[in-house]
């Protein structure tokens, strides 16, 4: 946890400050507007306490969930089912959350294809996490997995079936039988190739029957914290520019990852780490931020994922000399070596100057040596994606690719029940009223490296866990603890400041600087000196946020303002990630340090052993010398 406290100490000096009031001339004037409130709750009232320039509506709920992806919807559904008056605040329509991009599946040891045991899944996940995952959380997740999948199926999710009518399970990377000794396991349950979409559709549809209140296209600004307890969320309604305070005894954060801190990532433009930033601004730590998973083949620039199936069909990676460089790094597996090996090989080639393109900063994936019929039949999607996003005809030219950020293992620290924890005086302490699940949370089930198809499982199990924990410890209709009437003032002041910001650096410029900084300094391969340089650079870029310039002064559907708020959130994530990476002086899972190839635990063990052996042998030598003398005399 040293990494965590160092990063948070760094950030506590840089909390965005309150500004002076906006001069009257800049104010747009009080516009009258009509706003509609979802659901039948009549307890929303306009409050004048924070600011007369921004009409504030107060709501009271038993629980509020921020984010409507797989984890958020599962939590909202679980809470509504348990009778809690639940609000779900989301900046996107639920079926448009990034979960919809997931086409893989959900791992569960159902044992439909062959004999299976959750303990084998547990072993695979712990080993896959490079032994950094929290074993309580992994135990909970893998043991609950079959029940969670069956539950989803009962809710109406149409999993693909075998001929006998059981749920069809397919093979996925990293899953084995008998603790790694029994060969490939088939554990991944899917709904054709739209598992993510089906999950969202099912959960959203079911939750509506329980009368969950959805606040769609509301951007959550901050948590309402008082005396170390979370009492709700404050959000901006994009439709009419009003501010909404959602007071609730229980807040669940399920806002997803922060891939967008990097120049090249496979995530949608909505993955901006809003939850992590809200928690950071509340003075709480984040965990394992340095563990960012890279997928070897994402299209250069665009970042769209090119499936591993391409290399499986015979595609090869080449450098500027036209050489199939993987032969040097993995003579047997070549282009089908494991993801981290391929990512590292590609990065070494680029660092050594054999990259392609005008800036020599990526490599090529060649497919045009394969017969066009094979390409059309087996990999049709790739041809389209390459043409649309790289302007490349795969039958004639190679596709530019780069290791691309794919997933964030780190996030808001929680225990296996989904409760957010703070680390003070060397002890873990639960933060009352705050929960987190999904990619935003760090339970941690993925540790230093995530296995495929475990993410959707993580969403479902921990979304459910948050709902169960809240149901165990609280009752619906509980009286809310009092909250200062000026709660959230700082958030509104920040919003106002951004809306009228008139510095000299555009939002897009600062964002590009941050993304390039992260890509150059905290990518696949990390070295102490490069990371330190990166920390300083990111520091400067963070400071440059003071000079931000926005151009849209409106308050209704102001995309520029929302993207600037997202940039603020991304900056907090980026600074924590690179500082954590610099502090972690070992190679572990997805965090590869060129200067610390072996774990210090191992080197300490060896040095201890050597020291002990040396001391003992010296002792024996001296003893034998004495005995020899005695014998002689």
């Amino acid at each position: 946890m040293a990494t965590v406290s160092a990063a948070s100490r760094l950030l506590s000096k840089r909390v965005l400050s309150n500004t002076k009031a906006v001069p009257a001339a800049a104010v747009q004037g009080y516009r009258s507007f009509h706003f509609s409130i979802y659901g039948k709750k009549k307890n929303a009232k306009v409050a004048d306490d924070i600011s007369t320039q921004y009409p504030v509506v107060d709501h009271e709920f038993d629980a509020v969930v921020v984010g409507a992806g797989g984890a958020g919807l599962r939590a909202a559904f679980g809470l509504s089912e348990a009778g809690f008056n639940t609000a779900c605040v989301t900046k996107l329509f639920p079926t448009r959350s990034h979960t919809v991009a997931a086409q893989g599946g959900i791992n569960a040891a159902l044992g439909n294809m062959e004999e299976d045991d959750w303990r084998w899944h547990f072993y695979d996940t712990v080993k896959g996490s490079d032994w950094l995952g929290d074993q309580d959380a992994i135990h909970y997740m893998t043991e609950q997995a079959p029940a969670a999948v069956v539950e989803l199926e009962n809710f109406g999710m149409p999993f693909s079936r075998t001929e006998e009518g059981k749920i069809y399970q397919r093979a996925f990377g990293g899953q084995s039988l008998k603790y790694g000794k029994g060969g490939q396991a088939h554990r991944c349950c899917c709904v054709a190739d739209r598992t993510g979409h089906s999950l969202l559709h099912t959960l959203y549809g079911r939750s509506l029957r329980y009368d969950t209140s959805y606040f769609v296209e509301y951007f959550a600004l901050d948590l309402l914290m008082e005396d170390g307890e979370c009492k709700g969320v404050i959000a901006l309604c994009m439709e009419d520019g009003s501010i909404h305070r959602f007071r609730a005894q229980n807040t669940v954060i399920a806002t997803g990852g922060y891939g967008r801190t990097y120049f090249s990532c496979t995530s949608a433009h909505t993955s901006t780490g809003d939850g992590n930033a809200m928690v950071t601004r509340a003075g709480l730590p984040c965990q394992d931020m340095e563990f960012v998973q890279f997928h070897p083949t994402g299209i250069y620039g665009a970042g769209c994922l090119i499936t591993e199936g391409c290399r499986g069909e015979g595609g090869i990676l080449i450098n500027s000399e036209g050489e199939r460089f993987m032969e040097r790094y993995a003579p047997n597996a070549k282009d089908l070596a494991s993801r981290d090996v391929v990512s590292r090989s590609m990065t070494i080639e680029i660092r050594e100057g054999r990259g392609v393109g005008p800036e020599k900063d990526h490599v090529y994936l060649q497919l045009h040596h394969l017969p066009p019929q094979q390409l059309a039949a087996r990999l049709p999607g790739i041809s389209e994606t390459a043409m649309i996003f790289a302007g490349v005809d795969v039958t004639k030219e190679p596709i530019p690719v780069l290791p691309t950020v794919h997933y964030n293992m780190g996030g808001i620290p929680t225990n296996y029940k989904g409760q957010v924890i703070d680390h003070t005086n060397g002890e873990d302490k639960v933060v009352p009223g705050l929960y987190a699940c999904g990619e935003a949370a760090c339970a941690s089930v993925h540790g230093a490296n995530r296995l495929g198809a475990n993410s959707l499982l993580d969403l479902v199990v921990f979304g459910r866990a948050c709902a169960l924990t809240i149901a165990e410890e609280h009752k619906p209709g509980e009286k809310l603890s009092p909250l200062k009437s000026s709660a959230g003032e700082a958030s509104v002041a920040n919003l106002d400041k951004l809306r009228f910001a008139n510095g000299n650096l555009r939002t897009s410029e600062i964002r590009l600087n941050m993304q390039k900084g992260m890509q150059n300094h905290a990518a696949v391969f990390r070295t102490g000196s490069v990371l330190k340089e990166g920390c300083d650079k990111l520091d400067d870029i963070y400071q440059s946020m003071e000079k931000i310039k926005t151009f849209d002064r409106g308050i209704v559907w102001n995309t520029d303002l929302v993207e600037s708020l997202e940039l603020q959130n991304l900056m907090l994530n980026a600074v924590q990630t690179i500082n954590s990476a610099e502090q972690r002086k070992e190679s572990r899972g997805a965090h590869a340090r060129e200067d610390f190839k072996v774990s210090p635990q191992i080197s300490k063990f060896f040095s201890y052993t050597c020291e002990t052996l040396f001391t003992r042998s010296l002792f024996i030598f001296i003893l034998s010398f004495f005995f020899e003398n005695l014998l002689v005399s």
Partner: protein
Amino acid sequence: MCQAVRRPGVTAVVSSRGYKGDAPDDNKADLIEIPLPPWMEKTDEPVDIKRRRLLYESRKRGMLENCILLSLFAKRYLNTMTASQLQQYDRLINEPSNDWDIYYWATEAQPTPEVYQGEVMEMLKEFTKNKNHEQRLDAPSLEYLEKEAQ
């Protein structure tokens, strides 16, 4: 590379639309049995507000491919669309529940359902073909709006 030996092999057989034969049949039972509330058109929304809303909704999608495609499309066409085109576009990007469907229709990997066929869909399909072989590295920043306003 000793790290490779220590790390588990995560060579994933990733299921994706680009890998035929791996995805079993889809009976779409959830779409039939769990109907979502129907999409409602906003009839009394002023045109300029509609454009601003559609800009946000084009840029923030479920997956990267749509984010880039629709934000570039919006940059090119959104500010010059007529009211009826805006209506069609609104329906196209907000009614379908699966974002992938919009991508398949735009790339013509799957046929467009009749309700979404029309002028705007044709524009989107043509735009997607990328006949000029433009490099589509990322969603555009919002600078172009600022320039247009000047």
